[in-house]
């Protein structure tokens, strides 16, 4: 009974950590008033998704997806169980760089908003928006 519970915890603790991270990010996006803090929340959420994808790629008793001795193994069959799944790594590799680029766009929008309204608090921006109409 206890062994079963421990096995469940050990085999899924990584997913739970990512879920916790994701919820922290979501909380930041929904609850916080400051736009800067919303963007920090967005980044945390992104990190959770990236970690989740990378952990999907893991395999027991497998190594990194780089073939060791290319010439020696060219003739022997390469077994998929000896290398971890390269696909999530590829996807996340591009996702990280795109995340940085979009973060740059978000920050430049924030600078623009700050110049326009002199504040980053949402509850102070909204009345100013209504006045403008």
């Amino acid at each position, binding site marked *: 009974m206890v062994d079963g519970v421990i096995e469940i915890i050990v085999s899924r603790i990584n997913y739970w950590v990512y879920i916790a991270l994701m919820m922290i990010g*979501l909380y930041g996006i929904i609850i916080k008033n400051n736009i800067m803090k919303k963007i920090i929340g967005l980044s945390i959420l992104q990190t959770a998704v990236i970690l989740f994808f990378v952990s999907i790629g893991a395999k027991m008793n497998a190594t990194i997806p780089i073939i060791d001795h290319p010439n020696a193994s060219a003739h022997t069959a390469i077994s998929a169980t000896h290398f971890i799944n390269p696909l999530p790594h590829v996807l996340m590799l591009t996702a990280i760089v795109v995340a940085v680029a979009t973060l740059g766009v978000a920050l430049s929008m924030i600078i623009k908003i700050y110049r326009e309204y002199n504040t980053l608090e949402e509850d102070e921006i909204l009345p100013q928006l209504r006045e403008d109409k």
Partner: protein
Amino acid sequence: MLTVFLGGLLIYGSFDFPLWGDPAAPASIHVSPYYIENTLKDTSVPNIVTAVLADYRGYDTMFETVVIFAAGIACLFLLRTYKTVEPDIQLYRHIPTGITLRIEKGGKFPADSRYFERLDSAWVPYGLIVKTTCRLVIPFIQIFALYVIAHGHYSPGGGFQGGVIMGASLVLFAIAFDLRSAIRRMGERVIMLLATLGVGIYAGFGILSMLLEKNYLDYSVLANLFAFDPASAHSHGILIVEIGVGIVVMAVMVLLYYILASAGKNDEGL
């Protein structure tokens, strides 16, 4: 409240997940065994991640590159201001003595020389140690970046990572010195040209393969052009594409830093 509820729901969902590190997980039984088993035969690239990134999923990577390029352009359009308001008082530092000169409008500004340095805020310390260390370290960082790009076939690395390292070295220069001297060495026009060039290398290579009656981004055209065997043609095609990606990423990182650090004015910066 909502997030706790949603988190609980997701944790409940995680009980149906495959165990961590299970080789028979659905994610690793469909297309990835094909990649692992055939990469060496198809492309002669030992690093499977690089091969999948630039060859099997070439379109995806191309448009990721375009996304980065578009993000750089978007930043430029959002923030860049071309109206330069010259302040009435300009500050210069005489470097050998460390004295700060305060020159009002109508005064004679010192010529651009290595004895004078323009300042924008009243108190900027002259960081000799920081500047000397950066001058020593930056060339090594850049060589490492080139190594990461070129050696991405055999070890972890590739265009994205190498480009970021290269961009980081230039940003380090801009932080340790000031933004003006960084822009003097690598102006905005050069950066935009580099970013366009990088996307052009990637997309142009695809068009080249179309002109030679193959599919878009089919690297085996190099086999016909230069008489390589098809596998090593793929390997060289990947290298060309990675260089393009590296140039775009480097240029956009530096562009983002220039614009964000000076809020679009491209003056002294941080």
